[in-house]
């Protein structure tokens, strides 16, 4: 299966392990990712807080290149995905928007192709059966809190692939990898996004609540599809511990990292050593017969 691929800025920097593990999984599953040549930043929160047309045009240029190639677009980063879905919907709904966007990007773009989150591509298009068949080292009952965050599922009017309030696609995936998804209430709570950096006293309480809920519900680790969420929960876990006199030691993974590990990847090859919370001790137990 061939699909256009938009890594987004984070996958070359703060989320480099998302890129490495995605490439590994795609290769194992025979998914042909065609990286959009000359792709540009989606504009993130900065564009939609500054100028409506700019916030539509930046993602649209990438989508137009994929449309020209006749391909749907796979987007790993949940935040980029949300911007792409927004443009797609607005261009389809309003002819004037379509024309304005086309003029600004100097390319035709009619949103005849679909943006899909990478999670959706793996779970729904590649399929859980094919994924299960590729598992060589199951997660051996590893207890995973599947953390969807905001942008994989909200707002539902954009036509997301999973439920807005209690999504379950990642939970189904974890089961197929041999892990045990925990029941927990913070699947779609906001991590604090940019507030963690811009105003830590306002942002950190959100990160704290997510880590606390995961721990209380018995999770060994969290899985996510968003580089921003991962940075807040992993890099800033130390700040949370300091501020709240807590002792969280919860590794946070991209779901693709857990997939790649079960497919037989070496931890270093997919960048697991790049996390701030050390996950290697926890992973020592995987690959054995399920014990949980």
């Amino acid at each position: 299966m061939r699909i256009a691929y938009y890594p987004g800025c984070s996958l070359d920097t703060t989320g480099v392990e998302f890129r490495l593990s995605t490439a590994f999984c795609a290769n194992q599953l025979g998914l042909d990712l065609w990286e959009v040549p000359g792709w540009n930043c989606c504009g993130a929160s900065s564009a939609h807080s500054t100028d409506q047309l700019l916030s539509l045009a930046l993602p649209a240029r990438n989508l137009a290149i994929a449309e020209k190639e006749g391909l749907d677009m796979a987007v790993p980063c949940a935040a980029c995905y949300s911007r792409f879905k927004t443009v797609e919907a607005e261009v389809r709904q309003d002819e004037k928007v379509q024309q304005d966007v086309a003029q600004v990007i100097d390319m035709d773009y009619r949103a005849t192709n679909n943006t899909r989150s990478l999670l959706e591509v793996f779970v729904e298009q590649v399929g859980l059966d094919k994924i299960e068949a590729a598992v060589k080292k199951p997660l051996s009952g590893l207890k995973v809190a599947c953390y969807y965050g905001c942008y994989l599922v909200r707002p539902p009017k954009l036509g997301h692939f999973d439920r807005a309030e209690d999504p379950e696609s990642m939970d189904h995936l974890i089961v197929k990898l041999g892990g045990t998804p925990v029941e927990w209430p913070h699947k779609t709570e906001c991590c604090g996004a940019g507030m963690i950096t811009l105003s830590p006293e306002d942002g950190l309480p959100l990160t704290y609540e997510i880590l606390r809920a995961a721990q209380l519900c018995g999770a060994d680790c969290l899985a996510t599809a968003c580089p921003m969420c991962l940075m807040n929960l992993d890099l800033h876990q130390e700040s949370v511990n300091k501020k709240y006199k807590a002792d969280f030691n919860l590794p946070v993974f991209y779901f693709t990292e857990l997939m790649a590990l079960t497919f037989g990847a070496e931890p270093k090859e997919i960048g697991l050593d790049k996390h701030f919370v050390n996950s290697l001790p926890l992973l020592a137990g995987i690959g054995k017969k399920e014990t949980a």
Partner: protein
Amino acid sequence: MAGIELSAVQPVAKEWTEKLQAAGIDITSCYQCGKCTAGCPMAQSMDYSPRQIVRLLQLGLADDALRSRTIWMCASCETCATRCPRDVDVAKLMDLLRIEANRTGVAAVPEVPIFHKTFLESVERYGRVYEMELMMKFNMRTRKLFNNVDLGPKMMSKGKLHFMPPKADDGGAVKKLFERVRERRGN
């Protein structure tokens, strides 16, 4: 809040109701149930709750909304827009208020629009975000030179932050895109 002069605020209420309607947001639908605020993860950091922001606009007190801390504390998580029983897109409303507050120079938390401006300059120049430069410029512009200064080396030690700028190889398309947006805005 001081008394409200109704004859003065009515035109403002009308202006904002129409402006928002054109963007697909009908604030007259809102019956003030507070569902948006109940689910808002940032509400504790706001001066007006999301429900109160909508009420201010209904009453024609747009200036109070534009000068609020609320619009800059909003994390754009879309929970309000997802749960509103009257289908008022409060998240998009926050975007439009931020754009207007920034345009008119009344932002209550100037660091946030300074961050956005610095971020977009990076995108215009390189086609992608150059995080190292973004962080340094942001700290200089907000005069908080040592803000998050410990994070840089931490990220770099993991190969997650680069000295060199990214290269989009877009043939200058992104620069032109920004220029066309500016032309259309007429500045």
